[in-house]
């Protein structure tokens, strides 16, 4: 039971990769990438958690109470906002590909290139 978050993260990673490999629409590929990203959030937050500990905000609890590790939270926090813009960049590339070749199917795009 203690391994559950990490197992869930590994499962999300592989299922997201399956979505990338098997999709026939480039937009679906990009959306499956978000699932892969969230698996990393799970691993980071799962590592930093401590049993029966509180959130790292000491406004109303004594500063010597048992707190969750804050460093892993910092990594995930900025990452969540920034990955949204990276997904926007990928979608702009998809829109550009559609404009040029008229299709968002990766198989047909390869045929056009050859």
């Amino acid at each position, binding site marked *: *039971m*203690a391994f*559950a*978050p990490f197992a*869930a993260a590994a*499962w*999300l990673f592989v*299922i*997201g990769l*399956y*979505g990338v490999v098997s999709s026939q*629409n480039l*937009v*679906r590929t990009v*959306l*499956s990438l*978000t*699932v892969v990203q*969230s698996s990393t*959030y*799970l691993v980071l*937050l*799962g590592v930093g*958690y401590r049993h029966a*500990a*509180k*959130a*790292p*905000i000491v406004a109303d609890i004594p500063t010597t109470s048992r707190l*969750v590790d804050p460093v892993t*939270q910092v990594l*995930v*926090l900025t990452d*969540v*906002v920034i990955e*949204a813009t990276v*997904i*926007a960049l990928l*979608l*702009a590339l*998809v*829109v550009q590909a*559609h*404009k040029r070749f*008229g299709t*968002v199917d990766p198989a047909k795009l390869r045929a056009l290139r050859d």
Partner: protein
Amino acid sequence: MTALQAVALLLVVAAGTAIVFISDPLRQTLVLSIFGLTLTLLFFVLQAPDVALSQLVVGSVGMPVIILAALRKIAQHASARERHEEDGE
């Protein structure tokens, strides 16, 4: 691991798996919003309120608007292309 954390984790896994197996990108965007919501719940239960706030605003406002706007642009180019081909004939 408390019962609440276990339930939240299960919901996250279910929503993540659902995203991959839906075929229409528009429906996938809606499930992506729900996935963001389940992630918010999980982050909150793992004692990370800052991260939960971040994921909530990005998953409900930031990402779906970007994806829907991109889908609309693709649909618009597709209909413009069809009109071009009709005029050319």
